[in-house]
């Protein structure tokens, strides 16, 4: 006879806990290895400490936003599955549509919190969400060495162009997302909210930069990106309220 199932069963928490502990070990393993490597390459400990500070503070707010995604998905799927999917490989932009598609395939929706998932329905959703997102895990080990050999060859052939090439890759990524921010401006003033927020973020970054340069507040450098992001997000609230007031 099959065991009783709930989406928050302790068995699911145990499995997720084990997997997340392994992911944590992988992160610690690569942290220690790259730390030693950085020191052996002559990078100072102080510089690495700054990188740790910048990375840790920067991560907090986006991680809270991911947590909101976990909460949203947990209404239908319980906590263990969204906790796992958004901690490993996944991203909120992928997991919500994947969960919705899988839920529809078993005759329900994420919004339908009136009916509880059965074990077979949950099983389909877990399989779809897992298999759907595995491309990066499969292709990274296959392609990584080849792609980086290409970068290496480029570096050996023409170092200056190789530097420009890498900058262009980063600028391409930033420009795609900057462009996306303008994607709703034709919808009226409300569509400009993301642009206003982006401009506030840019302005805060310029102000922080000015403080660092003019007042010599070098300690601010570690928090510049976090400050511009959190400041702009805080300002998004009055900006949205103001725009909605004008539109209404």
């Amino acid at each position, binding site marked *: 006879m099959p065991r009783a199932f709930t989406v928050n069963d302790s068995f699911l928490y145990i499995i997720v806990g084990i997997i997340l502990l392994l992911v944590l070990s992988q992160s610690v393993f690569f942290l220690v290895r790259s730390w030693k490597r950085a020191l052996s390459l002559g990078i100072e400990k102080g510089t690495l400490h700054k990188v740790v500070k910048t990375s840790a503070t920067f991560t907090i707010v986006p991680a809270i936003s991911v947590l909101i995604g976990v909460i949203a998905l947990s209404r239908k799927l319980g906590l263990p599955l969204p906790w796992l999917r958004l901690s490993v490989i996944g991203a909120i932009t992928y997991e919500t549509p*994947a969960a919705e598609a899988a839920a529809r395939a078993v005759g329900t929706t994420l919004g339908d919190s009136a009916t509880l998932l059965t074990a077979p329905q949950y099983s389909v959703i877990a399989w779809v969400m897992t298999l759907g997102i595995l491309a990066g895990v499969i292709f990274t080990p296959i392609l990584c060495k080849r792609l980086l050999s290409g970068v290496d060859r480029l570096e050996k052939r023409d170092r200056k162009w190789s530097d420009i090439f890498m900058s262009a890759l980063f600028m391409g990524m930033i420009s795609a997302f900057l462009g996306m921010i303008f994607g709703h401006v034709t919808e009226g003033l409300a569509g400009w909210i993301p642009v206003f927020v982006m401009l506030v973020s840019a302005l805060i970054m310029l102000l922080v930069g000015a403080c660092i340069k003019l007042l010599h507040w070098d300690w601010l450098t570690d928090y510049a990106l976090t400050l511009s992001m959190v400041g702009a997000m805080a300002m998004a609230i009055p900006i949205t309220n103001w725009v909605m007031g004008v539109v209404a």
Partner: protein
Amino acid sequence: MTNTTVRSYDDSTHLLGKIWVWGMGVMMILFPVAVSVYYDAWPDATALFKGLLSIAPMYWVVGMIEVITYVPMLGASGSYLAFVTGNLTMLKVPCTMAALDRAKVKSGTPEGEAVGTVAVAVSSIVALLILSLGVLLIVPLTPILENPKLAPAFNQLLPALFGGLGVALIGKNLKVAAVPVIVMITLFVLVPSLANSAAIFVPIAALIAILAARIMYKKGWL
């Protein structure tokens, strides 16, 4: 450091990376397998196929594109870790960019790879801890995080992130950034529906940036 040492370090990175990434892939599959076995609830083939058909073709193509685009940015170790811990666009790649900028090292160099991996690892650990703490404290946290007054702030995470990041990085690469920024803004303004799948346009924007930079480089403008 000799070339042999560099080579052996890189080789061991790829070997260890493969073991970790594929090992974690197997661990990921363990979850649905455990659910199916423990509750005797193997998935219905038709429902599974239907669910996968609606997301897998696009996700796998995007996944492949992400690998091609982000691996050169993150380096070997950073990629082997970031593609397991996920959240690349919102967390790992910006975090790497900020770290390289902070340590004043370049991507594509051994120093850049070491610093970038430290950043990805720290970001992964912090994110994992926050999510785990959040799950533990879910009951008191839910009403706070789901407060409608806070919703506009979290809805604008990406503009708030890329505004500051843009100033920090575009300022240093103004000529390289000009063409892709103008083209992407024009594209998304003219075809707003594309904005919902911006991630797919990252490699296209990168290609435009590389082509424009190549022309400028050949003309001696860079």
